[in-house]
């Protein structure tokens, strides 16, 4: 490969922020736009996402024959406006994704710190549970929990947090174990700080970076899991416009060739997850080189 082509490629690479050095502009922009859409969904959406006109079922997007500018991205099997559902779907994905990641993060970080710092039977107990839960396939475990507690948007958040806190706990515990041997922690012990103080004032701030990086990387995973649960009918209950649910509904029109019901929600999920992963990768290199192995 000659030099200028390589340089051009490198530039393109940087621009797409797949390269770890530069700040990932596009992914941040995409997440920002989705977040803005989620916040202003009421203003932006042309229709009520949960109410359709049965007379206007399976309208294609406006550029196709039979489409109209009233429903820019067409309608679904109940005649609901796809664009409006996508817009409100962003809100659900954002809320479920972020809250689940934060719940899981808080729980996992707290337990990871306790496990790593206290050691002994507390460590044994937490780590045995962590190992076992990590062995369970996340989606299967989430389905089981959903079957036990029943589907609702709030339950989904709790389920996802219950399934994913173990990932934080494992990593944070490892970090705490090495932090424990550091001078400033030993000094605090010698100075007579209580265990609580040490964990809160000396350990927690030092594992926060890792927790944030992990959270960003987890956002994509959580959103895919939520979509899968909704797709299977144990996630966000209908008629709420979750993207996964839209895909499940879209399957009904798939064989008839109503592609927009399948392609569009999927694109939204992929854009969101891809952006979160890129941002997470960048943060990982930026904030915490030790996490590269993850």
């Amino acid at each position, binding site marked *: 490969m000659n030099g200028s082509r390589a340089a051009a490629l490198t530039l393109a690479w940087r621009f797409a922020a797949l390269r770890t050095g530069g700040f990932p502009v596009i992914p941040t922009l995409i997440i920002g736009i989705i977040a803005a859409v989620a916040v202003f969904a009421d203003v932006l959406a042309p229709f009520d996402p949960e109410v359709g006109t049965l007379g206007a079922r399976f309208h294609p997007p406006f550029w196709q024959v039979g489409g109209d500018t009233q429903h820019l991205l067409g309608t679904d099997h109940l005649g609901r406006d796809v664009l409006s559902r996508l817009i409100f779907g962003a809100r659900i994905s954002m809320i479920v994704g972020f809250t689940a990641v934060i719940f899981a993060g808080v729980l996992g970080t707290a337990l990871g710190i306790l496990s790593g710092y206290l050691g002994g039977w507390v460590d044994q107990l937490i780590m*045995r549970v962590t190992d076992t839960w990590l062995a369970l396939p996340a989606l299967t475990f989430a*389905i089981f929990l*959903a079957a*036990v507690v029943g589907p609702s948007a709030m339950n989904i958040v709790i389920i996802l947090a219950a399934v994913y806190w173990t990932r934080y706990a494992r990593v944070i515990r490892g970090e705490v174990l090495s932090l424990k041997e550091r001078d400033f922690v030993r000094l605090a012990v010698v100075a007579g700080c209580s265990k609580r103080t040490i964990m809160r004032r000396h350990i927690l701030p030092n594992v926060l970076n890792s927790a944030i990086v992990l959270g960003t990387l987890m956002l994509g995973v959580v959103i895919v899991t939520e979509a899968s649960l909704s797709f*299977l009918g144990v996630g966000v209950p209908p008629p709420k416009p979750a993207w996964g649910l839209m895909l499940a509904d879209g399957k009904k029109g798939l064989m008839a060739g109503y592609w927009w019901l*399948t392609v569009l929600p999927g694109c939204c999920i992929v854009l969101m997850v*891809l952006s979160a992963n890129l941002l997470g990768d960048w943060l990982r290199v930026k904030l915490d080189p030790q996490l590269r192995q993850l």
Partner: protein
Amino acid sequence: MKRFILRRMGYALVSLFCLSLTIFAFVRLTGDPAVLLVEPGASQADIDAVRTQFGLDRPLWVQYGSFMSALLRGDFGHSFYYRTPVLELYLSRLPHSLLLAVAAMAFSLLIGIPTGIIAAVRVNRWWDSAGKIFALLGLSMPSFWVGLLLILFFSVYLGWLPSSGSGTALHLIMPAFALGWYFAAAHMRLTRSSMLDVLGSEYVKLARLKGLPEALVIGKHAFKNALIPVMTLAGINLVIMVNVAVVVETVFAWPGIGRLLYEGIAFRDFPVVQATVLLGGAMIIVVNLVVDVLYAVVDPRIRYER
């Protein structure tokens, strides 16, 4: 080494115990278990009957004891929907899941290993970047969406492949691709890093010093060694594939364990859901144990060589 194996087996037993306790606890402690264990639409009398049958009024540890003893006897309860023992149902679906997993594995290795090797041999060049994009897409595209897109193109538009069901090799192609897609990315990344390790080894250096052609150095000396960790991961992933195929099997109506789990949810057939989770978790714990023990057996040799 014997001590290590025994300790490792001990851990696995603790994990299995922990697993059963987890499942037990979630069923008993979140609401009324009788409602879960009874068929949908059952009368109050039925619920009461179940309550006495399972001893739900007795202390929790007694309940756990009978739960465990039933599990150890292979009694996972009866399916409400199919009216057969759940274990029987599970075992009848297992071959389908294995078939799908093997096909998906073959596909993921076929994609993952060559791309991983190319990415390792051409470090930091175009191929490596392409590999990164591929790996990222693999992680970011949900397998069920990949499946739906496949149906859209190959069944609806082109009409080449059947959109659902099982029976012929043609039925297998799309679900195997959708399921293997995600794993292909993982296998690619491991092949790449393993290959990079091996390429830096002394024996590859010696192979070059012998004046062997590069194709022989990479294809013979490096490749075989680099494959060991990949095959280990593939072994674990095969079992994981059996257990994570829920969405793919649902999309393609493939009659495996994942589909069984989906039916369990759809028909509110709780014993099926519980058994699938328990058996899936147990399977993965056991496979991890087997891999660790095998590694321990192989390890002294490897350590000796260093």
